[in-house]
């Protein structure tokens, strides 16, 4: 298990973040929020060689299902900002599919809250 006590950003100390991100800046917050769900695009057979090792690694991680942006950062132990930038680049290039959370509206909120409430009650009695 990886508890907080062994949480070390070793990778980030070896390579400076702007090198990993190839100098790109932060993407739009709403497209890649903490809980935007991300997965690899299905018909992705061969990956071009120009992808960096970190980008390859993110694609690998995303190839077996959906993860939130926060989970991807947590699993890779890369800083959140760096992960966001790389995910934005991979999405633009068509390698990833993203599912941003629904925009908040009063009605949608109410339906979601009802679903969460009944789900919690069903799970935990």
């Amino acid at each position: 298990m990886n508890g907080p006590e062994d949480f070390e950003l070793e990778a980030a100390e070896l390579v400076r973040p702007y090198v990993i991100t190839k100098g790109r800046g932060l993407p739009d917050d709403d497209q890649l929020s903490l809980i935007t769900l991300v997965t690899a695009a299905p018909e992705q057979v061969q990956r071009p060689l120009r992808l960096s090792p970190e980008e390859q690694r993110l694609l690998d991680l995303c190839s077996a299902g959906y993860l939130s942006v926060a989970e991807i950062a947590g699993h890779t132990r890369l800083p959140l900002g760096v992960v966001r930038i790389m995910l934005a680049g991979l999405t633009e290039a068509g390698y990833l599919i993203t599912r941003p959370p629904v925009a908040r509206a009063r009605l949608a909120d109410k339906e979601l809250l009802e679903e969460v409430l009944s789900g919690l009650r069903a799970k935990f009695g």
Partner: protein
Amino acid sequence: MVSGPSLGERPSLQSRDYVAGGATQTAVKILVVGHFAVGKTTFIGSISEIEPLSTEETMTRAAQDLDDLKGVRGKTTTTVAMDFGRLTISDRVVLYLFGTPGQVRFVQMWEDMARGALGALVLVDPERLADSFAVIDLIEQYGLDYAIAVNNFDGNPQRAEASLREALDLLDDTPVVTCDARDEKSSAAALTTLVSYLLARAG
């Protein structure tokens, strides 16, 4: 230094680590907030279906040194970043719980986390009530609805709800519950109280 995965290494994930039914899921989030060492990580761990994860921006080292250790027994590590967990609610909704340090200096992190959150559960230590002021101020500043969960450490005497409400200057309808953050059912009950309240507010 403890070694983590090196660059280019792929963390080995099991299928249960991925979001079940991700293609049709709507992700929502609730914040679990509170001052240093109040039990946020424990709370999330008690209820999350995945091993809680942690992520950070960049400012954690200095923050760790600055945290106030007064009155905190047996706490050898601190939540230096945000911890989070996940709970699949149904085949339509997946809930993320984000534990957020209450320090004002994590402003960027707060903006990331508060945006689009359904609401917040404020964990409170009855013996360190004053430490919760800053957290509650932040929550209100971001316009989030919240409930208070009093986390009882080791059977410490519990303040009467009325005096706690007065000390924290709560609105009359703000829910106050007690919980044991180590206990799944107790954590779930606190969360259920919050969501009921959020639903009443949305109606």
